[in-house]
C-alpha cells in the first residue's frame, strides 16, 4: 500500500556516503518528519515503494535502528514538529508495542510533542488497522490516517492484487474515527485495466458518500501508473492486460474533479482533494520544497538544500544506522544547487492550486541570470492560456492540470544558468 516515498532509481554513481555530511551541523530547525515502515502483508502489484513481506520478524531490529536515527537528529528537532507522516509499506502492520516505543521516543526527543496543531499521519491498510493499534496511535498524537482503499470493485482490486474487502474500508475508517483520529483520507486508483468510466463513477460515488458522512475529509485519486520494476508493468508487457487509453484516463480525471468538488473536496494538488482546511500539510511541505527529515529505509529527506535517500534495503539500513550511531547510508545525494532547487520549486509548486510565488521565482531566476528566459516562457504559456498569475502566484489554469508535466518541463528549461 501506500504513497509519499518512492524508491528512486539511482542515476549516476552511488556514493559510499551516509546522511551525516548533510545532517550534522545543518541549520535547523526542521519541522517535518517522514518515517518509512517497509513491512507489508502482501506486495501489491502496482507498488514501487520499498516494502516486502517480513517472513523473519525484523520489526524489533527495525524499531531499534529507527530510534537511533531519530536520536541522531535530535538537534534539528529542537524547534518542534509540525507534521509527521508515516508511510510504507504498511505502518499499521507494526506491532502496537513497537509503535508505543516510537511514539515515546518522539515525546522524549521533540519539545512539546505532540504540540497543538501537529499533523501526524499514519498510512493504514483496511485489513491490518486494528482497534488496538489505532488507539495506541491516537494516544501517541496521531490525528490523521490515510487508508489505501484503491477501489470498491472486487474485480479491480484483484487486478491490483489488493487483498481487502471493499466493505472493510468503511469499517476501518469508523474504527479510526472511534479511536479519536479526526482526519481521514482514502487513496483511490483509476485507469485500472478493464475499468470503465461507469466503474469509476461507482467508486467515486462510494467515496463521495464517505465524504458526505464525514468519514473522510481528504481523498487522493491516482491514475494507475506503470512504474518500472513492478509486477504490474511486467504483466502489462506480457500482454496480460492493456493499459487504459489516455483519453479514458483524462475523462476519469475530469469526472473525479467534478464529483469530488460537488461534495466539498476541492483539488489542491494534481491528485489530491480536500475539504478547505483539511489539506495534507505534510505533503504541502514536499510541494513547497520545504525541509523535512527522513527516517527508515528508503526514506527521502530534504535539508538545507540537500536531498538524499536512505539506502532502501532493510538489512543495509539497519547495519549502517547501528554502525554510525544513527546515520543511514544514503544514495541519490544531491548537494545544494540554486538552479536545481529552482527547477524543483517549479516542478513541485506547479502541481498545487496555490502555485508558486512569482516574485520569489523571478528573484531566483535573476540570480541565475535567466530571468528573461523565464519571462519569455511565462509569456508564451500565458498567451496559450496554460498558466496564470493570481495574487502574485504563478499557477496552472484549471484545464491545464492534465498538461502539468509538459508545462513544468518548459518552465524548468527556462531556468538555465546564464540563459540570458
Amino acid at each position, binding site marked *: 500500500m501506500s504513497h509519499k516515498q518512492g524508491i*528512486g532509481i539511482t542515476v549516476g554513481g552511488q556514493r559510499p556516503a551516509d546522511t551525516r555530511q548533510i545532517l550534522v551541523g545543518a541549520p535547523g530547525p526542521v519541522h517535518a518528519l517522514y518515517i518509512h515502515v517497509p513491512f507489508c502483508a502482501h506486495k501489491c502489484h502496482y507498488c514501487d515503494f520499498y516494502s516486502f513481506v517480513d517472513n523473519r520478524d525484523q520489526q524489533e531490529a527495525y524499531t531499534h535502528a529507527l530510534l537511533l536515527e531519530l536520536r541522531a537528529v535530535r538537534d534539528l528537532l529542537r524547534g518542534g514538529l509540525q507534521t509527521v507522516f508515516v508511510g510504507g509499506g504498511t505502518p499499521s502492520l507494526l506491532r502496537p508495542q513497537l509503535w508505543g516505543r516510537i511514539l515515546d521516543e518522539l515525546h522524549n526527543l521533540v519539545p512539546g510533542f505532540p504540540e497543538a496543531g501537529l499533523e501526524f499521519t499514519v498510512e493504514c491498510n483496511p485489513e491490518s488497522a486494528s482497534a488496538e493499534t489505532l488507539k495506541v496511535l491516537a494516544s501517541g498524537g496521531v490525528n490523521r490516517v490515510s487508508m489505501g482503499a484503491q477501489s470498491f470493485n472486487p474485480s479491480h482490486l484483484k487486478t491490483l492484487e489488493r487483498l481487502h474487502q471493499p466493505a472493510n474500508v468503511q469499517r476501518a475508517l469508523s474504527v479510526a474515527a472511534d479511536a479519536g483520529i479526526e482526519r481521514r483520507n482514502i487513496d483511490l486508483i483509476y485507469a485500472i485495466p478493464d475499468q470503465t468510466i461507469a466503474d469509476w463513477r461507482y467508486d467515486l460515488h462510494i467515496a463521495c458518500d464517505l465524504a458526505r458522512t464525514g468519514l473522510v475529509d481528504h481523498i487522493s485519486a491516482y*491514475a494507475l501508473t506503470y512504474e518500472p520494476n513492478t509486477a504490474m508493468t511486467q504483466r502489462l508487457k506480457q500482454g496480460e492486460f492493456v493499459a487504459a487509453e489516455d483519453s479514458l484516463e483524462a475523462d476519469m480525471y475530469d469526472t473525479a474533479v467534478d464529483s469530488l468538488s460537488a461534495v466539498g473536496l476541492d483539488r489542491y494538488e494534481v491528485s489530491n482533494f480536500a475539504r478547505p482546511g483539511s489539506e495534507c500539510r505534510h505533503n504541502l511541505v*514536499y510541494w513547497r520544497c520545504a525541509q523535512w527529515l527522513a527516517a527508515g529505509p528508503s526514506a527521502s529527506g530534504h535539508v538545507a538544500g540537500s536531498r538524499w535517500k536512505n539506502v532502501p534495503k532493510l538489512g543495509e539500513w539497519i547495519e549502517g544506522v547501528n554502525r554510525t550511531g544513527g546515520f543511514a547510508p544514503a544514495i541519490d545525494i544531491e548537494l545544494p544547487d540554486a538552479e536545481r532547487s529552482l527547477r524543483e520549486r517549479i516542478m513541485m509548486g506547479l502541481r498545487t492550486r496555490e502555485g508558486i510565488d512569482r516574485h520569489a521565482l523571478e528573484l531566483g531566476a535573476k540570480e541565475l541570470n535567466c530571468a528573461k528566459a523565464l519571462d519569455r516562457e511565462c509569456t508564451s504559456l500565458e498567451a496559450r492560456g496554460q498558466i496564470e498569475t493570481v495574487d502574485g502566484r504563478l499557477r496552472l489554469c484549471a484545464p491545464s492540470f492534465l498538461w502539468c508535466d509538459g508545462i513544468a518541463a518548459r518552465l524548468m528549461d527556462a531556468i538555465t544558468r546564464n540563459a540570458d
Partner: protein
Amino acid sequence: MEIRNFSIIAHIDHGKSTLSDRLLQSTNAVSEREARQQFLDDMDLERERGITIKASAVTVRHAVDGVEYMLNFIDTPGHVDFTYEVSRALTACEGAVLVVDSTQGVEAQTIANAYLAINQDLEIIPVVNKIDLPSAQPDEVAMEIEQALGFPAEDAIYCSAKTGQGIQELLDRICRQLPPPRAPQTKKLRALIFDSHYDDYRGVVIYVRVFDGHLNHGDKVRMMGTGRTYIITELGKYTPKPEKVKSFGPGETGYLIASIKTLKDVRVGDTITIDNDPAEEPLPGYEEPHQMVFCDFYPATSTEKGSDFEELREAVEKLSLNDASFTFHPVHSEALGFGFRCGFLGLLHMDIIQERLDREGGVEVVQTAPTVTYELKTRDGVVHEITNPADLPDGSLWEELREPICKVELIIPTDNVGDIMPLCLGRRGIYKQQQLISETRTMIDFEMPLAEIIYDFYDKLKSMTRGYGTMDYEIIRFQADRLVKVDILVNGDIVEALSFIAHKDNADKRGRVLLTRLKDQIDRHQFEIPLQAVIGGKVIARETIKSMRKNVTAKCYGGDVTRKRKLLEKQKKGKKKMKSIGSVEIPQEAFMAVLDQGE
C-alpha cells in the same frame, strides 16, 4: 636513369597500404624506424576506415641488372566513388600493380580498378598478397585472377607485405616489365595534374606528371582548363620526405606549390603549361567532377541564436578546402531552418564528409535523406538539373524526368545468387550478365537506377551475403522513366524535406512505409495529426497520430523529486532536437525516415 611510373590498385583492405610501406622500406626510402604504418595515408579517418582518399606520389630508387631506376609510385584512392580520381592517377602511369588478397580473392573493385587500368593501356603485374596468413589460398586466387581478368595465373607474384616475401621480386618486375614513359610529343610543357591536397602551412600542393617539355622552379604556368596562372614557388619529390628539385623533365612525377589558396582553383585532370609558351592542346581526358548524390546538412541544435549555422558554415568551408569534389550551397527549409545542400561523388563520399564534419568540425548535423541528380525536361524543351525533390515543379510542366542509371557489378558467393537477384530486380535492376569467376563465386552485372542504390542497397547486399558480397557501380547514362514526386503532409502542411521522387509503381508502397515510420517518430500532440502522402494533389497513403489527452504524473511526493526532475529535464532536452512544422513538432531523426523502404 630509367623512369617507371606505376600505381598500386586493389579492392579495399586487400593490403595496398601495407604493400606500399613495404616497397618504400625495401628501397631504403623509409627506414624501419621511420616506417610509420601506412605511410601514405595521412588522415586518421582514412586509417580507421582502411581506405585512402587522397593520392600522393613517392619517388624511390631501385637497381636491377646493373641499371638504376627512378620509381615514381603513384597512390590511388581505393573506392568506387573516386573513379575519376583513380583514372587520372592511372593516366600518370605506364603500369599498375594489381593487388589481390589471397584470403579474399577477386572482388568487385578489383575488377573495376583493373578495367580502369586496362582501358588506359597500362601494363599490369598481378600480385597475390597476404600469403603469410593461414587461410591464404594463393593458387586459387591466382586462378581467379586469370578467370576474371585474363592474366595468366603463373604471372602472378606471391607476396606478403607483412613478412617481405616476394617484395624484391616485385620491385625487379616493376623495373623490367613496365614500359618506360612515352617519348615527348612536343617541346612545350604539358604536365597532368593527377591529385592535389590542401596543406595548412603551404596551401595547395599539386601532384603532376610531366609528359612533354620541362617544368622549372620559378616558371609562370597556366592551367589549361581553368585558365588560371601561377608562379611555381616550389618543386619537389617525396622520397617520401619532401626534397626540393629545380626541374622536372618528361616522364617525371612530383609535387609543386604555387601560392594557390584553395583546392577549388585546381582541377584534377587539368594540364599545366607555360603561360607565355603554351602547348597547343591539353592532355586528353579532363572532366569536371560530377556530384551524383545530394543531401542537406542542418545544424542539429536549436537555431534561435543563429550561431550554429555559422559554425556549420565554417566547418563545411574548411572541409571543402580539402576536398574539391564536395560542393555546397546554402538552403533554407521551413522545417529545418538554414543549412547547406551538399553534393558528393557518391555514397561513401557522403559518409566520409559527414563523419569529418562531426570529427574535425565538431558540428552535430541533421542530415536529410540523400537524393540523386535528376534531369528534368520541361514542356518548353529546356533541360534542368534537379538535385532536390522539393525543386521539382508541378508534374503538368514536365516533358520527362530522367534519372542516373548505373552499371552495377556484384561479386557474390554463388550460393547467394538466388537472394541477390530478387534484391536487384526489386530495385528496378536490369540483369545484364553473369559469370562464374571461381568455383564458389559469381560476378553479376546489372543496370540499376542510382536512386535505388543510394538507399540501403549496399547494407542489404552485405547482410544477404554475410559480408562476402562486394559491389562497384558507375553511372552510364540518364534515362527517363515513370517517376513521380511524392509530397508528405503533416497536419496539412507539406514538409519539403520529406518529399521524394519514386517510380510510379512503388510510390504507394514507399509512401505508406514512410508514413508508418513517421507515425512512430512523431510524439502525440494535444490534437490529432493527419499524415498524408500525396502525388500531385492525390492522396496515396494516410496515417493518423492520435491526440494526447494528458501529460501529467499522478504521484509526485518527496521521494520522487530527483527522479522526476531528471525525467522532465530529459523530456525537454529531447524536445530541443525537434523542428516545428506549423504546430507539430517533428524530431530530427524523422527526416531520415524517407530512407527506410521497409523491405
